[in-house]
């Protein structure tokens, strides 16, 4: 019994706390390009001060937050519509519709992002279609812009939004909506006053599930975004692999974690509360 309880803590200790301590140690060290590994351990805040003084990092932070926030909102809009439609579909059709939402997971994430490159490229399928149909003779290229990054994030994270929303909408007691209509609420007013507030736990859960990984997203901005789309995940990668500056890369990683600790705590709190309400 005691072992079972200890297991998650052991797991957390070995695979989270220990690596985190290592990263922290590296972040406090100094860059030593000639040694292997390229770090000289010590206690210095040089990497952290650089992060807060160089505009590049602040800009990358803000871009990451902005892109994550806007694409989370767009995902929420589409996700809500999809979840609502599935929850209102005939019960025997719901499993199929849900499976279609999850189906893309059967293909590797990386391959699906590459597929978007093929679609959005200058001579990609989208532009070929636009030229062929005569809608645009000289269409611009979406690939390499922030639009492509947004598109990629919305596409990749949509299931994470749909599933928690579906879970709350499917449970919604339809007699509440009938009661609202009976008391004089038009359908849209009933949605705003009953459905929306009661699906708030799903909205919070879905948004955090999309927002948290989207802030640190690396693959999508790297493959679909251009050189001017500076997201923090990409900066981290560049510091580590291109500049081989381990302490700075580690400092970026730690700041990312601290920044996301807020939303993660919010998510945990909200999950615990909805668990409480159910019992």
């Amino acid at each position, binding site marked *: 019994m005691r072992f079972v309880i200890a297991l998650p803590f052991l797991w957390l200790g070995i695979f989270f706390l220990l690596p985190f301590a290592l990263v922290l140690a590296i972040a406090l060290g100094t860059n030593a390009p000639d040694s292997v590994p390229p770090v000289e351990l010590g206690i210095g805040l040089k990497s952290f001060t650089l992060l807060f003084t160089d505009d590049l990092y602040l800009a990358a932070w803000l871009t990451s937050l902005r892109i994550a926030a806007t694409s989370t909102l767009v995902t929420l809009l589409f996700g809500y519509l999809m979840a609502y439609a599935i929850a209102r579909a005939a019960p025997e059709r719901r499993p199929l519709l849900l499976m279609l939402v999850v189906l893309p997971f059967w293909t590797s994430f990386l391959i699906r992002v590459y597929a978007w490159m093929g679609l959005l490229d200058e001579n990609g399928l989208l532009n070929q279609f636009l030229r062929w149909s005569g809608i645009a003779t000289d269409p611009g290229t979406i690939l390499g812009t922030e639009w492509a990054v947004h598109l990629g994030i919305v596409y990749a994270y949509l299931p994470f939004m749909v599933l928690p929303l579906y879970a709350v909408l499917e449970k919604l*007691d339809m007699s*509440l909506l*009938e009661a609202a209509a*009976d008391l004089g609420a038009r359908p849209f007013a009933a949605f705003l006053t009953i459905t929306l507030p009661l699906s708030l736990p799903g909205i919070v859960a879905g948004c955090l599930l999309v927002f948290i990984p989207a802030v640190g997203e690396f693959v999508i901005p790297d493959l679909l975004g251009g050189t001017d789309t500076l997201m923090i995940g990409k900066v981290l990668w560049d510091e580590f692999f291109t500049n081989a500056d381990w302490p700075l890369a580690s400092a970026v990683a730690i700041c990312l974690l601290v920044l996301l600790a807020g939303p993660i705590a919010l998510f945990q709190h909200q999950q615990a509360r909805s668990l409480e309400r159910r019992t």
Partner: protein
Amino acid sequence: MDDREDGPVSGAIVKIKGLTKRFGAVTAVDNVDLEVAPGELFALLGGSGCGKTTLLRLLAGFETPDAGRIFIDGQDMTGVPPHLRPVNMMFQSYALFPHMNVAENVGYGLRREGVAKAETTTRVADVLEQVRLADYAQRRPAQLSGGQRQRVALARALVKRPKILLLDEPLAALDRKLREGTRFELVRLQEQLGLTFVMVTHDQEEAMSMATRLAVMNAGRIAQVGTPHEVYERPTSRFVADFIGVANILKIEGGWLALRPEKIALSAERPGLANVVAGKIVDIAYEGDRSLYRIATDGAVMIVSTAPNLSHRRGDSVWLGWAADAGHPLDA
């Protein structure tokens, strides 16, 4: 005795004509005609699946009829959505909004109407006073007992001052003790406010004790409409006679006779009544205020009810007798 017939009610507030509703192959409501007078407490009574709830939902506008029309206060309700109908419903599950407190729940309908804030506050306070929930205005539904929730649901519908209040099994979710007290309270409120109530119930005792008139429903049709007294004393069919209370149904020349257990005299000696049958006691159920006997006669097992009487024993040979006008002949 109330001699009102089931013909048209003058100045009816609800008029239902040829109403039919089908769900796939099932006809839930089958060509129903019905009228309810203003100020009535009208009960739709029947077993599960008889169509009584569907009829109520058709009145509220949650279902669309396949044929027929509903008039409320002379206004044709065809195509009128629920939010525009002058009726309010008290749901069997109460359907209270879990994210709003009692006052917000009750005020919901007034806010949708665009009633001014100050007036909403007064009207909510008044109606909460009426249902004795004034001290609970800030509570959430989850923090209330079943009986309190029921009264919130009632207050939420009443505050809109509907022409008709629809009640779907208003007492079914309450425990027995509370149910009986609430019965009288509902009747008191209905009389005090002078409202028309249309209530659905499967409990014949509830319908008999509360309703001014009731409709017994069977398989989507109305089997009989009348005052509780009429329906009990003069059932028109075997179904109604059997459904309302307990009845001995005897085969007589040209039809059937419904005979209530309390109309039969039980004695050890042969009584001097118009109809006399000999039998043997099969079972005795002592119920405190009365005794129920199952008595095997030549033709069938008959049920007889008497004042609590402990002198007869199981297996005794007894005589049953009833007056010439004790039974009520049935057509079908």
